[in-house]
């Protein structure tokens, strides 16, 4: 009767083998799933530098792929975390802050470890009963009873905290924790990249206010980081100079702060006109503007006339504040210019240099002694073509400081 015993043993062994095979298959299938998740996330979902798009993608991923209904991303701001994105919450709670070290979210940020907390309501009640104090309301689902919070880290840097919540007491298990652990590094890196990119864009935008984009494109540069000392380009361009007449006595009647505000008001009116007509501002010299028009001189003339028109509105506006009206002078000249980077080592500046700049500046100065406020050179008039829309007045010749020959000048006004 030994045979049946033998066969039972074999059966048992086979059944045990099958169990092990099933177990291994299950583990393998789980690993394959994990790899699939990681691939999908990195290739499609996190592949954007737009922070808002990224937040949307992460929330959709958590909801659609993993089935988490209530999620939040809080970003680290030093001593506190701020809700930057949320999904599923009635009141989205954007902007709400959590101090580092407070509650589940704050503690996860402080200790840099994932936490899965169930039965939140019971636990809070327990502490309330024991201590006789109220627990503080934190930016969670009104009735959150389960939370998983995971630190989003890039190397040693805490980018933020990702939170998944549920109103059910026992909503999450170890597998949920594992899934979040798998994706959190990639999510953190993607957020960090997008945030860095946004910072870079803001920086580039700030830079472009100091060195105009148009100036860089003259030098055929994409970014200010590419520029070097001695970079230069030469070409025919038009220079426009404008200045407030008798600003010094006017400014003496104001406090320095008032004068500052006045100049900024004035420049705020004039500067957009330069851009509107295809020019860019090379520099401000106090209340004076030096602008470059790389295109036709007609652009500069149209801009100059528009500036005079806007000055009327500006004066009407300041009159209501009891200020006297101001007058401006504008000089325009066209010629060869070199645009380039000047300076030395750690203090560089982009500027344009050329005889044409001096001439435009002198033309502007000459409006003081002439009955016009917009004065242009003969070169400009020649380039205006038929210019039927302008009334062009020859005002004879003026002496230009540092020049042997006198310069023919013209006053320009819109043809009424």
């Amino acid at each position: 009767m030994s045979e049946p015993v033998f066969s039972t043993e074999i059966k048992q062994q086979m059944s045990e083998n099958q169990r092990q095979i099933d177990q291994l298959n299950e583990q393998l299938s789980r690993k394959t799933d994990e790899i699939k998740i990681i691939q999908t996330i990195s290739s499609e979902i996190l592949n954007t530098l737009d922070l808002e798009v990224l937040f949307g993608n992460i929330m959709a991923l958590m909801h659609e792929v993993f089935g988490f209904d209530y999620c939040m991303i809080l970003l680290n701001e030093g001593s506190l975390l701020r809700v930057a994105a949320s999904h599923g919450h009635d009141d989205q709670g954007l902007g709400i802050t959590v101090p580092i070290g407070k509650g589940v979210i704050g503690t996860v940020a402080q200790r840099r470890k994932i936490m899965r907390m169930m039965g939140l309501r019971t636990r809070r009640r327990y502490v309330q009963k024991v201590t006789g104090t109220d627990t503080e309301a934190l930016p969670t689902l009104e009735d959150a009873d389960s939370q998983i919070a995971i630190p989003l880290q890039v190397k040693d840097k805490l980018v933020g905290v990702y939170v998944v919540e549920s109103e059910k007491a026992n909503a999450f298990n170890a597998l949920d924790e594992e899934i979040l652990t798998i994706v959190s590094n990639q999510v953190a890196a993607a957020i960090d990249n997008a945030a860095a990119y946004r910072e870079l864009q803001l920086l580039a935008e700030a830079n472009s206010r100091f060195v105009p984009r148009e100036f860089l494109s003259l030098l055929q540069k994409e970014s200010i980081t590419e520029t070097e000392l001695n970079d230069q380009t030469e070409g025919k361009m038009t220079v426009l100079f404008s200045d407030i007449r008798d600003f010094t006595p006017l400014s003496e009647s104001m406090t320095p702060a008032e004068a500052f505000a006045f100049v900024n008001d004035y420049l705020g009116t004039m500067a957009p006109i330069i851009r509107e007509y295809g020019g860019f501002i090379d520099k401000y010299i106090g209340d004076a503007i030096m602008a470059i028009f790389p295109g036709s001189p007609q652009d500069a003339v149209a801009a100059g006339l528009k500036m005079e028109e806007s000055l009327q509105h500006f004066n009407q506006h300041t009159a209501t504040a009891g200020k006297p009206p101001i007058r401006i002078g504008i000089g325009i000249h066209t010629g060869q210019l070199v645009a380039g980077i000047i300076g030395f080592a750690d203090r560089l500046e982009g500027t344009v240099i050329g005889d044409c700049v001096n001439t435009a500046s002198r033309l502007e100065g000459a409006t003081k002694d002439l009955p016009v406020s917009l004065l242009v050179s003969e070169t400009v008039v020649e380039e205006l073509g038929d210019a039927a829309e302008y009334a062009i007045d020859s005002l004879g010749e003026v002496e230009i400081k540092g020049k042997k020959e006198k310069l023919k000048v013209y006053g320009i006004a819109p043809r009424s």
Partner: protein
Amino acid sequence: MISEELMPALQGIVPAWIVTTSDDNVPNCTCISQVYPVDENHVALSNQFFSKTFRNLQSNPHAVVQVIHPADIGMWLLEIEHVRTESDGPLFDEMDMQLAAIASMSNMEDVFKLQSAYVFKVHSVTQLSEALHPAATL
């Protein structure tokens, strides 16, 4: 010994009860907030205050805990034995972190400090219904 099925009862959702005995065999029953799962054969309790329970465990390491499954309010009895006490390491950190998270909501993080984690070997796990009516399971 600790099955997946039992796990939800070890998440602190419903408070648990523990029975210990003193060195002169007087039983003591008290409510505890959570029995932590450690591994298949171990659970842990947090020692925050010096209570009678922990004094009793010094003389008799054997205890019984009753945990409640949040889904069906099913009660389970665990016969456990205190085998070691940890005051650092991953288990201690995890328990301490959970305590800090809740306590900090009431600004009590300095009061509610984990002194140590008591680790117990689990000798048996029984549903209360089985324990009361062993014949019914035959």
